[in-house]
């Protein structure tokens, strides 16, 4: 059971550890700011339920899900010669023994299933980005008030430099990471990794479904 799901379990564990680590490091930084601005430090429980923690989490989540959404959807139309991340042709819709039930039926269920990965990534991206905007408004307003400045409304915040700074600083790093993976995987290899072409594959070989 554990061995058969090792990949998922590994990332679940490191995700929880990293999130816990972020909560303690974030609490330290938050309390430093509080003391520096004449306020009082808060407990770990108060911090992890605060808008400041939620916005920091959500801004990273939305960018990760956007990255996968784009990766999944853009690779339908655009190709990169030589990259194993690019498709080389063929839809792969052929039904065979063991195909999921919704792949064997037609109509709406087939259409939904055939696009379900992109749909779930897309919906999660939108929800995370919305959560970032709501929590960001609250965190920004708390900081505004602590600096004796007026709070803003949600539309004002969504148009503010703070919202777009948080958003774009995450997006640019995700786009660079995808670019690096697409381009470097043309010429570089990682033995036995399904994310890499086989070591002996020609540089020109594109996709994994040849």
């Amino acid at each position, binding site marked *: 059971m554990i061995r058969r799901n090792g990949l998922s379990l590994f990332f679940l564990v490191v995700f929880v550890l990293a999130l816990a680590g972020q909560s303690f490091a974030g609490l330290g930084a938050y309390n430093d700011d509080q003391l520096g601005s004449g306020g009082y430090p808060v407990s770990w429980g108060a911090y992890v339920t605060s808008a400041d923690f939620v916005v920091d989490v959500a801004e990273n989540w939305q960018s990760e899900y956007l990255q996968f959404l784009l990766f999944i959807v853009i690779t339908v139309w655009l190709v990169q010669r030589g990259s194993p991340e690019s498709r080389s042709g063929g839809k792969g819709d052929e039904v065979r023994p063991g195909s999921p039930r919704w792949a064997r039926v037609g109509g709406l269920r087939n259409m939904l299933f055939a696009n379900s990965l992109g749909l779930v990534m897309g919906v999660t991206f939108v929800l995370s980005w919305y959560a970032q905007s709501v929590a960001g408004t609250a965190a920004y307003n*708390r900081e505004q008030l602590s*600096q004796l400045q007026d*709070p803003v409304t949600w539309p004002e915040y969504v148009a503010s430099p703070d919202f777009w700074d948080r958003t774009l600083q995450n997006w640019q790093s995700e786009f660079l990471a995808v670019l690096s993976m697409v381009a470097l995987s043309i010429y570089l290899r990682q033995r036995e990794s399904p994310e890499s072409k086989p070591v002996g594959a020609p540089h020109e070989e594109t996709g994994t479904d040849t």
Partner: protein
Amino acid sequence: MGLALPVSACAAGGGPAVEEAAGRFFAAVAAGQGAAACALLTDAAARSLPEPCATSILDAGLRGGPAEEVAVWGSEAQLRLPEDTVFLHRGPDGWRVRGAGCRPQGDRPYDCEVSG
């Protein structure tokens, strides 16, 4: 002074507690109880006033009044009065005044008679 309020750590719905804390602060000022008013300031705000706080807080020209608008965001709050804007911060023993006698300065921070 025994004026601290047992305010919960909940971020939402702090409006009445904020109004009550500000009301007690301005009531103390109006009654000439400088020490009681100073006890309702954040430590930083109290330190920002010339010593002794109990005297200088009464000379700051602060006037209270009915709350026209309350904004509470996490551990910070802003209370608009007819002739004043007040900023409060929630500490372990409840809401305390961090800015009073504040006038707007456009996009810049309010200019306050008491702030910290």
